[in-house]
């Protein structure tokens, strides 16, 4: 099980420092710039392909959606393989790149969807490729930061003896990269890719149908299909879409991720054997089929040969001691950063002066607290429901084996496809959207809590179970002193993942529509969604920035310390 692997954002540095401040300013300015560039093109958009609600078209739409996913995954991987080594090996680049990544992880790009769509449409006027690229970019932003961070962390924690071995055998930079660094990073990279995948599905569905002002642009795909079905109040079509998505994710999961995870466990850096899960059927099939095996070996050999090339790259391995960094270059670099920060400050200042009043800002922060309340309440409910169930399942290995893959699978399902069903219920019974839209935010992410708690309870040491039974520890005391501390690190990992994703989904979850009816909950998510519909640039930027702020503060001040505490206190 890879459950103890962490989403990349928990394991970073804890307290914000000067570099964070610089990075925040630069990222903010970047957001404003993108918004500004896109704003000029708020012209009527070309009408895309029309979407039919005929279920026979669904496989085609599903294929288009999946393709986008794959292309984005390839881009994310390339980005990761280039960006992370740069940040890890160049001290100067690392200074600014790492805090920037850390912050980009917390930006709800979903709120910026309309701008990125416009930006890419503008690059390829009148062609579908622009919208396609925009959708792919949206998925990319949900995957890349996370993967890059994970790779970066692996690069900086390469075991010292292996590092010395590669150096004393005089491997070239290129050989070292493919023989040591990439393999060492592989398990974390695969796990984080899987984690970003569910976010990716969420984004791909949201990014296919984008409404800006009065124009709606539709790309052929499941997301567009659902949004058309919603406007047409076609319940059957919604169900078909959900079924299609379930099928797609099942195939994706079985064909790609199960084999990938099993394969990557080979790279896990531990010298103990055993505990390996049986090979998933796809991998066994691959290994048994002669033709595929030959093909696989050919690919493997080619990759090995390429990795073995004695290329010397300019990125020299940093000497552990010795040559002091050049002061002059440092000086130039710091000056460059200072200029960048000053420019960002100026951009932010002009933007704020032109379009935001203090009252507005206060209002948006207040809305942020509304959403915070909703996320917190949702987490409490999820905890109350799934912790007891998860513990119950986890202590029964036979159940755990069945439930675990199901929970992981459900976590990958894009929750926004389920929204229509909730909306129908809400409309039907005239429920208060301020309260009842809340479950939407957590509907997709609750599974993280479940499968982490199950994993924690399964891993609970047998001798401690026996000791507590022997001492007659029961009831509340057992929960308080035995099992809750025992699963705490696992639970926190699940909860923080769920909370992070809940913020992102707030943008979609606080506004829901069914036919002509639109339900809105008061909160930051609906504020951003409304601003998007109205084409209100300043509103979107303000909303996204405030939300980024909330996510950053909560991660830094709550989740990271909590996680560190849980690990410190409950493990030997």
């Amino acid at each position: 099980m890879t459950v103890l692997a962490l989403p990349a954002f928990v394991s970073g540095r804890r307290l914000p420092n000067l570099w964070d401040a610089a990075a925040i300013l630069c990222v903010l300015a970047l957001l404003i710039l993108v918004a500004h560039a896109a704003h000029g093109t708020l012209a009527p958009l070309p009408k895309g392909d029309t979407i039919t609600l005929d279920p026979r078209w669904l496989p085609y739409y599903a294929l288009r959606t999946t393709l986008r996913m794959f292309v984005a995954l390839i881009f994310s991987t390339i980005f990761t393989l280039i960006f992370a080594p740069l940040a890890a090996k160049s001290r100067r680049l690392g200074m600014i790149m790492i805090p920037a990544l850390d912050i980009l992880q917390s930006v709800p790009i979903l709120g910026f969807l309309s701008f990125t769509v416009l930006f890419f449409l503008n690059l390829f006027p009148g062609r579908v490729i622009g919208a396609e690229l925009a959708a792919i970019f949206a998925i990319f932003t949900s995957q890349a930061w996370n993967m890059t961070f994970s790779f970066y962390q692996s690069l900086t924690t390469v075991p010292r003896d292996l590092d010395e071995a590669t150096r004393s055998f005089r491997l070239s930079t290129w050989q070292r990269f493919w023989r040591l660094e990439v393999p060492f990073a592989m398990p974390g990279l695969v796990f984080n890719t899987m984690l970003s995948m569910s976010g990716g599905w969420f984004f791909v569905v949201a990014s296919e149908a984008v409404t800006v002002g009065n124009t709606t642009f539709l790309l052929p795909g499941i997301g567009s299909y659902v949004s058309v079905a919603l406007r047409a109040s076609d319940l059957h079509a919604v169900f078909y879409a959900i079924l299609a998505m379930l099928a797609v994710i099942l195939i994706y999961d079985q064909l790609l991720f199960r084999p990938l995870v099993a394969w990557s466990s080979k790279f896990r850096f531990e010298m103990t054997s055993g505990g390996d899960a049986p090979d998933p059927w796809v991998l066994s099939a691959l290994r048994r089929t002669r033709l595929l095996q030959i093909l696989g070996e050919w690919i493997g050999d080619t990759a090995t040969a390429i990795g073995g090339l004695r290329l010397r790259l300019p990125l020299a391995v940093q000497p552990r001691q010795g040559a002091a960094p050049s002061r002059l270059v440092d000086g130039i670099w710091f000056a460059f950063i200072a200029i960048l920060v000053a420019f960002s400050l100026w951009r932010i200042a002009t933007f704020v002066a032109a379009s935001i009043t203090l009252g507005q800002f206060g209002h948006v922060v207040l809305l942020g607290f509304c959403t915070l309340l909703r996320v917190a309440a949702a987490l409490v409910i999820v905890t109350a429901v799934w912790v007891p169930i998860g513990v119950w399942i986890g202590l029964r290995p036979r159940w755990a084996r069945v439930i675990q893959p199901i929970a992981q699978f459900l976590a990958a399902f894009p929750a926004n496809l389920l929204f229509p069903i909730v909306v129908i219920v809400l409309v039907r019974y005239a429920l208060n959207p301020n309260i009842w839209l809340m479950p939407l935010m957590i509907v997709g992410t609750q599974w993280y809590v479940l499968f982490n708690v199950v994993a924690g309870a399964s891993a609970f040491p047998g001798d401690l179970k026996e000791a507590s039974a022997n001492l007659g520890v029961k009831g509340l005391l057992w929960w308080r002193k035995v099992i809750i501390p025992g699963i705490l690190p696992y639970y926190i990992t699940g909860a923080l993942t769920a909370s992070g994703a809940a913020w992102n989904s707030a943008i979609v979850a606080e506004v829901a529509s069914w036919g002509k009816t639109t339900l809105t909950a008061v909160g930051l998510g609906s504020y951003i969604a409304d601003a998007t519909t109205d084409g209100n640039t300043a509103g979107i930027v303000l909303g996204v920035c405030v939300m980024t702020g909330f996510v950053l503060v909560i991660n830094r001040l709550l989740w990271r310390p909590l996680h560190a505490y849980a690990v410190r206190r409950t493990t030997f």
Partner: protein
Amino acid sequence: MDQIARTEASTLVSIQNCRQSYPKDASSDVIILDDVQLSLREGEIVGLLGRSGSGKSTLLRIVSGLLKPTAGDVRWRGQPITGPVKGVSMVFQSFALFPWLTVEENVALGLEAQGVPRGERTTRAEEAIDLIGLGGYENAYPKEMSGGMRQRVGLARALVVHPDLLLMDEPFSALDVLTAETLRTDLIDLWSEKRLPVKSILMVTHNIEEAVLMCDRILVFSSNPGRVASELTVPFAHPRERLDPDFRQMVDDIYALMTRRPVEHHKPLGVDKGAPAAPPPVQPLPVVGTNLMAGLMETIEGEPYNGLADLPALANAFQMEADELLPIGEALQMLGFAEFDEGDIKLTDAGKRFVEADTDDRKAEFAAALRAHVPIITQIRQVLDERWNHRAPALRFRDELEDHMSPDYADATMRTVIAWGRYAELFSYDREADQFSLDDDQDDED
């Protein structure tokens, strides 16, 4: 002996005035290696023997070119060393195998780095694998193998490039006693039969018998800072017999060498080479638990030693290596419970009192010893007594330690301070808050 004839042969490594320090701040450095000379000729096995912290592993890394010394002249075949040297390969204590490569791929890695074509790579890797007794394991992954087999892979990987010099960093210390012995004899057999494709071996060890068993020359290091305290030539021919009286005598002599009181202490030894710097007010403490100390004292006091024990005999009885036994003895010596004397260890009166006391009195004895001999513990207690709330952050004491030693040592010393202080009930320590405090009952003591 043909060894003597070969000493005239060409010099592989020569090191002059080597110094390795690690900058603490602008004014003070923590010195790891000080004024080390070494010259290594073809055809010999040289051992660097010393306690952990004596800088011998650092010296090995300097020879390999992995580390650049702060000062000094380091040459390989007369040329200054600037980076990892071709012709030198290394065997690691932790094996340093790549878990995702098979045995053969691990072994062939060094050849791949040299750009040896694939066919030749396979042939040579298989040769090395067969030589080292791993035939049949070519396609196994390291995690499927036992520790001894893994270290054989490490050896094959180092030998496959036919290095002139083989460096070994405590190669057998992660293995159990029997496995380690098999590997040692296999290696020495190959060496004596001249089947190893190397010209010389330089090995780091903290195991005295291992050094006497394998090496032609032994450099004994002293700690803090690391220096070559003495150099010994081992006159025995291979294969050597551990039970041979001359062998035993040499082991005894080395124990005596290694337990000599550090020069900085008490006696003004101006005669020793190079005037030592002023003794540091804060000394690193060994990571030794109170149970180990009590256990050793009880053993020495009991039968058959009756208060005076021969160190090699003690080490054998406990299956301990010098590196494990000596820190305990040294801790006892530091606290005034025991004394080293030419390869023996003897309990003092305080030590005898400790052994005879019950739990509470033992704690009192221990507390008194700490107060008398460990300034930093006295200082912590003093600060706590003076503060109105009897609390003090541990950070300031950590900082003070780090002024005098590397962070690793400061950390180890801090752990020992906490463990000893807790046992003696001199103070409590809260890890979450990282602070020392006095409990109520500790408060009104003296």
